[in-house]
C-alpha cells in the first residue's frame, strides 16, 4: 500500500509541471501567433520557422537539450525547471497553430462589420474576434492539454520525481507486482484525462448550441 501512496505523492509534481507548461504555452503562443499572421515578412518568416522547428523535434530531445545542452553555456537548471521550460516552449508552437486555426475559421465579414462600426482594432480583436476564435479552438486546446499532461512523464528521464518516476522506483524496489504498479500509474493518468475530456465536450456543446444555426 505504501508503494501506491508513494506513487500518488508524485501527482502534485505531475500536475504542476503540466499546468505551468500549459500556462507558458497559452501565453507565449499569443505573440508567436500574431507574428505568424503578421503582414511583415520580418515577423512572419521567423515565427513560422520557429513553429516548424519546435514541432519537428521530439519533446524529449528538447528536454535533453535544455537540461544537458545548456550546461555547456554554464546554465544549470533544476530538472523540474528544465522540464517546465522545454514543455512550455514546445507548447507555444502547438498552441500558436491552434489559435491561428481558430482565427482563420472566423468569417471575414466579422472583421468588416467591426471596421464599419468604427471599432478600434484592439476592441474588435478583444470582443469580436478572440471570443469566436477561442470557441472554435477550444476542443483542439483541450486535446493538446491532455497530450501535454501525458508528456509530463518524459520528465522522469531527467530525474523529476513525478508519477512515472516514482512508479519506476517502486517496481525496482519490488514492493508490489510491476503489472499492478503500472496499471495503477495508467489509471492515474486516465482518471485525470477522461473527466477533463468529457467536461470539455460538454462545454463545447453548450457554447455551440448558442451560436449554431
Amino acid at each position, binding site marked *: 500500500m505504501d508503494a501506491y501512496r508513494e506513487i500518488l505523492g508524485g501527482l502534485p509534481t505531475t500536475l504542476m509541471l503540466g499546468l505551468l507548461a500549459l500556462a507558458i504555452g497559452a501565453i507565449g503562443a499569443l505573440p508567436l501567433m500574431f507574428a505568424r499572421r503578421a503582414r511583415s515578412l520580418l515577423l512572419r518568416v521567423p515565427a513560422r520557422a520557429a513553429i516548424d522547428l519546435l514541432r519537428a523535434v521530439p519533446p524529449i530531445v528538447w528536454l535533453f537539450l535544455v537540461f544537458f545542452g545548456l550546461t555547456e553555456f554554464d546554465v544549470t537548471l533544476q530538472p523540474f525547471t528544465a522540464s517546465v521550460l522545454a514543455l512550455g516552449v514546445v507548447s507555444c508552437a502547438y498552441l500558436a497553430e491552434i489559435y491561428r486555426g481558430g482565427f482563420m475559421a472566423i468569417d471575414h465579414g466579422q472583421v468588416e462589420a467591426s471596421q464599419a462600426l468604427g471599432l478600434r482594432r484592439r476592441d474588435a480583436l478583444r470582443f469580436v474576434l478572440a471570443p469566436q476564435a477561442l470557441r472554435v479552438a477550444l476542443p483542439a486546446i483541450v486535446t493538446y492539454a491532455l497530450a501535454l499532461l501525458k508528456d509530463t512523464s518524459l520528465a522522469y528521464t531527467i530525474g523529476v520525481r513525478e508519477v512515472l518516476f516514482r512508479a519506476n522506483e517502486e517496481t525496482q524496489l519490488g514492493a508490489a507486482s510491476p503489472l499492478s504498479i503500472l496499471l495503477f500509474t495508467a489509471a492515474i493518468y486516465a482518471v485525470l484525462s477522461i473527466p477533463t475530456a468529457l467536461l470539455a465536450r460538454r462545454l463545447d456543446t453548450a457554447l455551440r448550441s448558442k*451560436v449554431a444555426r
Partner: protein
Amino acid sequence: MALKRRNRGETAEHPPAGDGTVDRVAAVLPAPPLSQAGEPRAAGAPVVRLTDIAKRYGDHVVLDGVNLEVREGEALAIVGPSGAGKSTLLRCVNFLEQPDRGRIEVAGHAIGVDEKPSSRRLAELRRSSGMVFQAFNLFPHYTVLQNVSFAQRRVLGRTAEEADACSMQLLERVGLKDKAAQYPARCSGGQQQRAAIARALALNPKVMLFDEPTSALDPELGLEVLAVMRQLADEGMTMIVVTHEMNFAKNVADEVAVMCDGGIIEQGDPKQVLVDPAHARTRQFLRAVLER
C-alpha cells in the same frame, strides 16, 4: 443635424415634432411621418462626395474614375449587372476597399487616396456611416441586444444603461423588441438583417450604406427588410443602396445610378431611368430583370 435630417418627411401636412428637445436617443430615429414617397423634396447639402474613384485588381479595372454625390436626406439606389463595381464603389465610401485613386468625403471627413489615412481618421470616416451587409454579419456570440449596444459603448462611450435604452427603442422600431435576448442564430434571416440595421443606426450615422441587403433572403423575408428601409428613407435618412430590387429603386429611391463595367452609365430620377432609360445597356439590363 438630427433635425435637419427630417427635411424629407416635413411637409405641410406633417410638420416636424415641434418640441425642439431632441435627445440623443430620439435623434436616432425621429418619429415617423407617413410615407411621402414620390413627392419632390428639397435637396440638402452633400453628405457623401466621391471624386474620380478608381480601383483595379491586377489588370482588371473594377472602378474607372467614378464621381458620385449624395445629398442629405437623399436615397440613392445603385443598380446594374454583377461585376459592374456596385459593391466595390459602396465599400469605398467607408474604406472597406481602398481605392487606387480619388477622393472620398463623408460628412465633412475627407480622405484622399494619395495619403495613407491614419487609423484615427479612418475611424472618424467610418463612424459617419453605417453599413448593412448582404450576409448580415451580426456578432454570433452576442445577443441581438448586445449586438446593437456593443459599439455604442465602445465607440460612442455610452454607459450600458444608455446603450441598452437606445437599443431597445431601435429594436422596437425595426419590430424586434421581443428578440432582444435571442442569439442571432435563433433569428430568421429577415430578423437578423433588421437587427443589423438597428446596430448600424445606433451610432447615429450621417449616411446608411446598404450592400445588397435582401439578396440572401427569400422574397417574404426580404419584404420585411425593405419595409424597414422604406421607413428609414421616408424619415429622411441619407442612404446609398446597392440592390437588385427594382421596385424599391423605383418607388422608394429619390435617385438611381446604373453602373456597368466600372462606371455609372446613367443616373437620374428612378421613374425616368428605370422606365424609359436612355442607355442601350440599361435597357438590356432592365429587360433581363423583367424577364425573371
